[in-house]
Every structure is written in C-alpha cells, then in structure tokens.
C-alpha cells in the first residue's frame, strides 16, 4: 500500500514503438499483504520490519474491523491520534517506507562514458532525443568522455545516484520544463553543481541544439 505516481508526458503518450507482448504466465506475481484471518495480537498499523508495509485487513474479514482515513493514526492501533510525538514518528516512518522502495528498484546505469567530463541527465519522454545526441557525439565525433543517464525513478532515486554523479566533472540536466528535476537533484545532493538545459516551447529537443550545447560544455 504505497501510492505510486506515474509521471508521463505528451511525447510518451503520442509516441509509438513495437512492444513485445508478454504472456500473463511470464509476468511477476502480484503479491499483497492481505491478512485472511484474525491472529492474536494483530494491530492494523503493525509494520513489516523490512519494508515497513502494513498488513491489509479487508471488509468481510471477521474480527479485524478497523478504520482508516486521513487523520493521523496511532502507530500501533490505527486509532485517530492527536499525540504530537506520534505524528512526528508517523511522518518519519512514512518517509522511510518510501525511501526503502530504493531496495526494490534497479540501480541507475549510465550509457556511453561510465565516467568522464560530462554526464547528460534526462527523464521521461526525452530519452530518444537525448540518447541519439549523446550517441552521435560518442560514436561519430569521438567524444568518449560523455555519458548519459536516464532516470525512470524520481522518488526514491536509485540507490547509486550519488556515486554516479561523482564520476563526472560536469552534470547537465536536460528537461522540457523549467528545471524541476534539476531542483530535486539539488535538494538531494547538496554540494554538486547541476547545470540545466531547458526548453518550454511545447516542442521536443532538437538534435542540433543538444549536440551544440553538449560540445560547448566539454570543448
């Protein structure tokens, strides 16, 4: 029961690509934490030690009646709680639960230079244009010092993000907005300089403008 917000954009929505259809048998099983019967000492807000996930007692299950909702809840009983310390604890544990999702998502792996002078960062629907511009520099123009990292997870960030960032001299965050992801990175990694390349014209990045910008930063 962790809310997932899927960010998408017009480019992804309107784009098309061949897609290998999986059989349902090849898909990972979706597991849930539903508790089917009353156990002694069960509490609605008990958490799994590792993931901090709670069990899920659904209506129709005898003996596990409880209430959920937007008011702050006691960390064990799940009853409404107005205790200041409990609220602080719950706020922190919810944040920690999301943080631990980093244990379930893949680490980030850059393409092209694994370390070097410039790391280009993108996310969302800009993959195609950013990737081909970096590829062109690397393959055609011989810039073996440019790497590209495309983020599929923004919160939490992949566990090895800091390590990745430390391997390049300059970091350029390219976004089709005013720099939201650059700000997320700044907030998470103080002391690292994030350069920005933004375009907010309702148009995708053009190859020429990208190549020109990248070159300008390394030459």
């Amino acid at each position, binding site marked *: 029961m962790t809310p997932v917000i899927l960010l998408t954009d017009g480019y992804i929505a309107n784009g098309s690509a*061949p897609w290998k*259809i*999986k*059989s*349902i*048998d090849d898909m990972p099983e979706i597991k849930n934490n539903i508790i089917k019967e009353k156990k002694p000492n069960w509490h609605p807000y008990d958490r799994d030690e590792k993931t901090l996930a709670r069990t899920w007692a*659904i*209506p*129709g*299950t*005898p*003996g*596990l*009646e*409880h*209430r*959920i*909702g*937007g*008011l702050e809840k006691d960390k064990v009983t799940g*009853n*409404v709680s107005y205790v200041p310390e409990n609220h602080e604890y719950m706020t922190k544990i919810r944040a920690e639960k999301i943080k631990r999702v980093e244990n379930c998502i893949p680490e980030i792996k850059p393409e092209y230079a694994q370390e070097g002078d410039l790391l280009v960062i993108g996310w969302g629907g800009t993959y195609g244009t950013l990737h081909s511009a970096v590829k062109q520099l690397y393959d055609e123009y011989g810039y073996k010092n440019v790497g590209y990292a495309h983020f599929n997870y923004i919160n939490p960030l992949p566990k090895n993000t800091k390590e990745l960032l430390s391997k390049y001299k300059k970091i350029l965050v390219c976004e089709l907005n005013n720099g939201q992801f650059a700000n997320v990175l700044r907030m998470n990694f103080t002391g690292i300089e994030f350069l920005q390349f933004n375009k907010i014209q309702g148009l995708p990045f053009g190859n020429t403008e990208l190549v020109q910008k990248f070159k300008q930063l390394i030459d």
Partner: protein
Amino acid sequence: METTAVKQYTFKDFASDQEVRWCPGCDDYVILRSMQKALPEMGLKKEDVVFISGIGCSSRFPYYMDTYGMHGIHGRAPAIATGVKLANPKLSVWVITGDGDAMAIGGNHFIHVIRRNLDLNIVLFNNEIYGLTKGQFSPTSLVGQKTKSSPYGNTQPPFQPGELAIGSQARFFARIGGNNPKDMTDIFIEAEKFKGTSLIEVLQNCVIFNDGCYTKYTDKDVKEDQQIFLEHGKPMIFGKNRDKGLVLNGLKLEVVTIGENGITQEDLLVHNAKEKDPTLHQMLVRLQYPLATGIIRSYDDVTLEEREDALTAQVKSNSKFRKTDDLFFSGETYEIR
C-alpha cells in the same frame, strides 16, 4: 445478504472505543446512536458492514463505529464505496456525507452514484452549513442566511437534496428529523433492506454554527402540525388532531382539513412510495408546509450489480476471449523475428 447463524448483536457491539469529538448537543450523536441501534436488527454480520465517509463533522462517523470504515476524501465517498461494493457485493456499504460534502465538492459523484443504483445506503447529514470548517454557507443554506462566508446574507438559492436526488433518478429517498431517533432507526433498517441506492436525508441541527435551523419543523410542540410522516399505503394525514391531510388540486398538493367543506379521510391521497413515476414524490419533497418526512420514495428497480452481472454472463458466454492471454494476443499484433 446472509442471514443464517448470525450472532445476536446489541448496539454496544457497534460502538468503537474512540472518544467522540462532536460538540455536545449535536444531532450527529442521535444519528450515531440510531445507527448503532438499527444495525443489530439488520441480520448482518459485523464484519460485513462498512462505513465510508468524505470530509466534514459528519464524516467522522466511521471512527465511532466498530465496523470496517474509511474516512475518505472530500466528496468522494461514493466513488470509494462503489469500489468496495463492487469488490465484494455481499457487504452492506454505507456512505456517510454532509450537505457540503455531497452537494458542493461531491455534487458530481452524488448525482451519478444515485443514477447508477448500486446497492448502497447514503446517509446525508444536512445541517445547511459547513460545520467542520466553522460555519460557511453550503449548497443547502437558505437565501438570506447569515454565515461566516455570507455576513450580509446568502444570495444563492439552495438545493433540496430530495429534489436533486429524485431528479437524478433516486429510487429510495427518505427524510427524517435529527431529533427523531425512533423513526430514524426504522428508516435505516428499511434502507438496508432496499435493493438499490437509498438516500436518507437527516435534518441535522448544528448547535454551534446553525442552531435551530429546523426548529419550526422539528420542535416537539410543532412537529405534528408542521411535518407529515409518510407511510406507504397510508393516507397522507397529519396534525396534532390528525385532522389535516393532503389532496391533489390540479397540479398542486393542497392541505385540507377533515370535516371542513365536506372533506373526509377518504378524500386524502394515499402514499404510494413504490410508484415508479416520481412526480408526486417530487411534489412531496418540495412541500414546505407540511414538511414531508419518512420514506417518500421506495421504487424497486434493477440494480447496477444486476445489470453488470447479466452483462458479464452474456459477454462471457459469447466471448472468444477465454483467458487474459487471448485478449493480449488478439487484434493487430505481429511478431518481429
């Protein structure tokens, strides 16, 4: 609903151990107690009862019931409740909402849930004000009503919840005074029995921000003269002396006195809550004198679940899709080798 081998509950079984946070004297307590008294009469298992609310003083209700419950999102209880009911149709699902929750921010959800006729029960706590946020006018506040957000008087004509609901094809609509626990309890039981969406409007006094808004109808001294309590199959009669009644005069309801102008009880309209045509029910809902209470409309119709089940069975029997993969690999798919 399963009725076999159900434990005999008392109202205490449905009371949670949580401290109730409503203001002393609030009619919400009456509604809570009436519900706790009605539930043991319904032959349900406790674990099969679910209360889903939105936001407001009224929407704190689920916390005080020892059943499954969810204090939801402002105006969105119908959507959550629809999901709960469709996921497990044997549950008895109750939506708890206020006049603001149901008709301001949740107006859209409200009319559509009623139109669809899923087997849900909706209890609308109508105090003609936003209580929780400390007294702003709501969609049921009266013209001229002075509130925190209308210091010189409200200029917006109010909704009549029953009128809106019947306009949205409500099959079951009841109205009851917030100071009448006995009839309220009975109405809750009838609402549960009814297959389809039942809406119960409680005229709920908010002692803090809109005190006395219903006294002219609900006060002990006046209620028999100012309210007509409707019962299916019974004449539309009211008054302390049981000498007043309703007749139809052209396209209007008219109050008459038995014994005057040759009127006898035989001349009075007989309440037919089960009539499909809602015209008379709408007229009753709009009536200002006397104010109609009781079960005004209770028309048996096909429920959404029944329609869904029938459609599913029909599509299943004809469908070329037998499993999910059949669907995945259907249509214009091709393979790159």
